[in-house]
């Protein structure tokens, strides 16, 4: 009887053992065994494993699936073509400099519904083309980029939420990518393009980063309908920086509450059209940039609308500047008084950045007015618009508390006044 029991026990054990190890240890072997085009469904649970996928298969999570690894290899490495990764949580806790949660090379992969947590990089694309990454979330620790592209073309990034990384989406020598409807926050640079051409940035939101978007030595970029909000905490913060880039189209974006809305340095032949530039400390800054086209933008509520040095030869026409004095004599909707960006403050602080403390100091405004620069060296809007080019919604606040403040002020001062007049 006892022996029988013992045998039974062993049998049961032997039945369970392989099942357990199959779920825990051999995800990779499942992938190795799978046919091309097969779909592997992962059951709910945690898998402490690194995967390498080299053939066109689909890996799909059912319920809460977590892939986790602290090794120096990526949690998932993809190559070849048409690999699909779906509904999976990926956590990478390795802390080596080049560590990444997902490494992608090859073409036409699809990554969807992922939630990535990483100490360093989120997803690295190395010579990867036609990859789609969408509906996913990446959270980092400000030690690596969320998505990092190296020589990767024609990829699509859509509906991603990226938080707390170095650069949200970083492109180097990568062309023709589409970045659409992503939300990047609390990172160093939202989108960062280096030597990358013909990329499209559309309807993204980049907020509370050091810089919303950096375009560096990139050509023919389209930046349209994005929102650059509250990039104002760092002393180097700005909404959009265009450096040595050409043929950029910046259309229909909103730049709100940034330290500097748009900063353009040594960039030529770009078009900045129909943007809303509101409540920034400085609206636009031009430095040694010429041959650009700035039109139909609405500048409103900026502490200082525009500053420019060595940038007299731009086409600045028909923008709305709320700080400009406007007179329309002939009724064409354009003011007859030209509006110029004053170069003095930028020139002064370029030489000695410490003088930035005088930003909008009353004495400096006086000095600025005395030291008028020759008109032909200024960035000048020859025909400022009388009316805004777009609706600017007004904040509405509840006036009840304000009435209370008003009444308290009046009553308290009045009673003190009565008390003061009284002879004792």
């Amino acid at each position, binding site marked *: 009887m006892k022996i029988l029991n013992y045998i039974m026990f062993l049998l049961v054990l032997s039945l369970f053992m392989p099942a357990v190890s199959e779920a825990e240890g051999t995800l990779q072997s499942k992938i190795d065994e799978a046919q091309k085009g097969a779909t592997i469904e992962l059951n709910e649970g945690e898998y402490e494993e690194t995967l390498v996928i080299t053939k066109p298969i689909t890996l799909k999570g059912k319920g809460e699936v977590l892939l986790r690894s602290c090794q120096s290899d990526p949690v998932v490495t993809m190559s070849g073509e048409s690999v699909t990764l779906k509904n999976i949580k990926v956590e990478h806790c390795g802390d080596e400099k*080049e560590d990444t949660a997902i490494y992608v090379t090859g073409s036409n992969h699809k990554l969807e519904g992922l939630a990535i947590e990483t100490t360093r990089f989120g997803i690295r694309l*190395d010579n990867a083309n036609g990859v789609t990454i969408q509906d996913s979330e990446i959270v980092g620790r400000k030690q690596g980029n969320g998505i990092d592209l*190296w020589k990767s073309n024609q990829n699509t990034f859509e509906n991603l939420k990226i938080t707390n990384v170095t650069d949200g989406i970083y492109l*180097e*020598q990568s062309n023709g990518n589409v970045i659409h409807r992503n939300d990047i926050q609390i990172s160093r640079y939202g989108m960062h393009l280096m*030597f990358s051409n013909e990329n499209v940035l559309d309807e993204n939101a980049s907020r509370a980063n050091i810089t919303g978007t950096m375009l*560096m030595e990139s050509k023919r970029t389209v930046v349209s309908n994005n929102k650059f909000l509250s990039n104002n905490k760092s002393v180097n913060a700005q909404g959009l*920086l265009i*450096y*040595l880039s050409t043929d950029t189209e910046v259309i229909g974006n909103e730049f709100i509450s940034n330290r500097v809305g748009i900063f353009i340095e040594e960039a030529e032949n770009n078009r900045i059209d129909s943007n809303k530039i509101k409540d920034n400390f400085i609206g636009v800054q031009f430095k040694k940039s010429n041959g650009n086209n700035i039109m139909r933008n609405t500048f409103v509520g900026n502490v200082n609308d525009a500053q420019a040095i060595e940038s007299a030869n731009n086409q600045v026409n028909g923008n709305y500047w709320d700080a400009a004095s406007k007179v329309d004599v002939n009724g064409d909707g354009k003011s007859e008084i030209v509006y110029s960006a004053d170069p003095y403050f930028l020139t002064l602080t370029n030489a000695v950045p410490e003088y930035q403390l005088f930003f909008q100091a009353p004495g400096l405004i006086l000095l600025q007015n005395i030291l008028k620069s020759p008109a032909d060296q200024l960035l000048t809007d020859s025909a400022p618009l009388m009316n805004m080019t777009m609706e600017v919604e007004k904040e509405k606040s509840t006036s009840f508390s304000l009435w209370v403040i008003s009444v308290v002020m009046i009553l308290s001062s009045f009673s003190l006044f009565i008390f003061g007049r009284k002879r004792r």
Partner: protein
Amino acid sequence: MKKKLFCFIVLAGLIMILAACGNDKAQPVAINEATDTCETCNMAVIDNQYATQIILENGKSMVFDDVGCMYEWVTKHENEKIDAEFVRDYHDKEWMLVDDATYVYNQSVKTPMAYNVISFKDKATAEEFAAENEGSTIMTANDLAGHDWKQKQDKANHSHSDGAKDDHSHSH
């Protein structure tokens, strides 16, 4: 009247002393990652081996994220009086004068602004690195002055030997 003259002399003396203080040998300033940006390209400067620095004669220090950016700045600002230029050792990040360093130019080495030049404090380690990495050119500070500082983004350049190692160091 005497009082005023005295005040003036004291003030003038003070300014002279202050001016004299600036004549010490220029020392490199530590990189502040939170706020330092490259004078040329505006990118944040990471406290790594690619960072470089110029100290002007008036004591102003400027940092660059890539030695190429520094040379770019020097060519664009020929009238500025430069006191010292510093680069860092590729391995231990020690600051040294531009003239004391040995450089390696290798297109497969990634630097922040893709100028692909790195610096070493002694020639032996530079040669060692060059031997390990194909396509390296060893340069001195003099060679750098004549270097054409081409960034590697050109399409025409596309067929270059791409090192093909996956450990390119992204450090922007």
